[in-house]
Structure formats: C-alpha cells, structure tokens
C-alpha cells in the first residue's frame, strides 16, 4: 500500500469518526487542535484504524499520534 493510499484510507476513517470534512484533513493536521478530537475520540479512532488496517496499535504507539502524518508513517511501517 502506497503512502497516498494509506493517507486516503486514514482520511476516510477520520472523516467518519470525527465528523470533519475531508478537505480539512491534511498530513499536518493535529488531532486535538485542528480536528477537535477529545481523548475518547482518539481511542475510537485508533480502534477504527485497527479494524480498517487489520493491525494492532498499542497504547504506547497511539500516544505518539499528534498529527495525521504520524498515523500514516506508523501504518506505512506496519504494512511493509
């Protein structure tokens, strides 16, 4: 899966879970500040990503997700 494909899929999950517009989801978007995610949103998002990408995401990894690009980089590494 290419970086763009991952970004697109991640964007779809974010749009569905956080009820934001796709055009507002950019690699540099921060979950808390730009996308309005609270702590529960973040947990739900991680669980949705786990289902969508069929990977396990440890809490210790999820804690490091500040921006959308952090998630994309993590998944890119996982799906290698």
């Amino acid at each position, binding site marked *: 899966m290419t970086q763009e494909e991952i970004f697109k899929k991640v964007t779809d999950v974010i749009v569905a879970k956080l009820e934001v517009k796709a055009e507002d989801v950019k690699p540099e978007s921060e979950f808390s500040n730009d996308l309005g995610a*609270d702590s*529960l949103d973040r947990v*739900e998002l991680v*669980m949705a990503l786990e289902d969508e990408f069929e990977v396990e995401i440890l809490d210790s990894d999820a804690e490091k997700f500040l921006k959308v690009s952090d998630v994309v980089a993590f998944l890119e590494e996982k799906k290698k």
Partner: protein
Amino acid sequence: MKNKRSIVTGASRGIGLAVARELAARGSDVALVSRGGCDVQAKAIAEEFHVRAFSFACDVGDSCQVQEVFTAAIKALGGVDVLVNNAGVTRDGLVLRMKDEAFDEVIATDLRSVFLCTRAVAKSMLGARYGRIVNIASVNAIRAQAGQANYAAAKAGVIGLTKSNAMEFAGRGVTVNAVAPGFIDTDMTAVLSDEVRAKYAAQIPLGRLGQPEEVAKMVVFLASDDAKYVTGQIIGVDGGLNA
C-alpha cells in the same frame, strides 16, 4: 421502550428476571444472560410480551466468554441500546475466616463483570451516540453489614465504576447509573433465616422486604428516555433503609 434492544445479566431469576420482563413489557427486545442460560425464561417472555427474546449462557466474570457472548448478543439483537449489569453472587463470611476464593469469586462476578460487560457494549453505544447502562449496586455498599467484606467491596466498586463510566461516556449520549436495592425478596435473601429476615424487616422504614418488580421499575425508568438527563447517580430502592 419500543424498538429498543436490551441486554440483562443475571436474568434467570430475581431482580434480573424482573428487569428483563419489565423491559419486554414496555416493548424492548431482550437478551437474557446468565451462567446456565435461561431458555425457558426467554421463551416465556417472547410469548407473553410479543418481543424478541434471546438466551445466552455466560460466566460474566470471564473476559473471553463475555467478549464472545456479547458479540453474539449484539448481533442477534441488531445493536444494543440498554445494558443492565445485574449478575451477582454472595459468599458471606467473617473476614477472619474468609477464603481467598470467596473474596475473588464475588469480586469477579459482581464487579469485574460490570467492567467487562460495559466494555463489550461501549463501542456499539458510543458509535451510535446513544446508550443506557444501569448497574445493580446494593444498599450494603453504603450501609455496611458484618460478614460481607467481599460483597460490600464489590458493590462499592460498582458505584465507583458507575460514576467513572458516566463521566467517560457523557459526551456521547450514553448515561450510566446504578440502583442500590435494599433487602429484596429473592433467592439471594431466601437463604437467610426467618429470624434474620424479621430483624432486617424491622429496620426498614416501610416495614417489609422489597419485591424484585419494585427494583425493576426504577431500572427501567433509568433505561428509558424519561431519564435522559440523569447520569452518574446511585438511586436507592430500599424502603427507606438508607434514609
């Protein structure tokens, strides 16, 4: 409660069965969960109230079983709107003589189960932005009774879980409340001697033990849309015992 889908644990008898029947009487589909299953009760409810009623066997203190059974129950119901965490046991005894197993069993069945079952419905309820969770605590968590260290600790834990979960889920339209029954006329209190029961009854301002149906009415109120502004509360149904 029309078109609502409810899961009740410890539903084979006592308060749990009364709650399942009351939910069904108001039009909710129900999944009855108990250690040995409750096919007979589910069948009777389906026939009497013309709702869908399912029976599941599950040790609610066991994480794997809860995960498996709740996945199946939510699938059968087509979602879940209401969870009533009612399953509970007692293993009374004075601390001096209480075995580890007696403590652990009560904590697992009465407290851990509430965590496990709540977690098992959380994803579905949070995603739907709607849910009602009602936990059955006990007056004995608030007003102590000698010989119930395990039970009092577990039920006090249920109160803490109720409040903490209410905070976590409040932003998603999911309310979490607890009902604290007093002395209710069930198999759990039937083991007490007539002398002890009479002594209890004498302490109750309303002068008698409660009936399971009287607890069920409060549970179903908290599970209904009438209680949508109530969360994180512990409501006593105890004949005034804790007044």
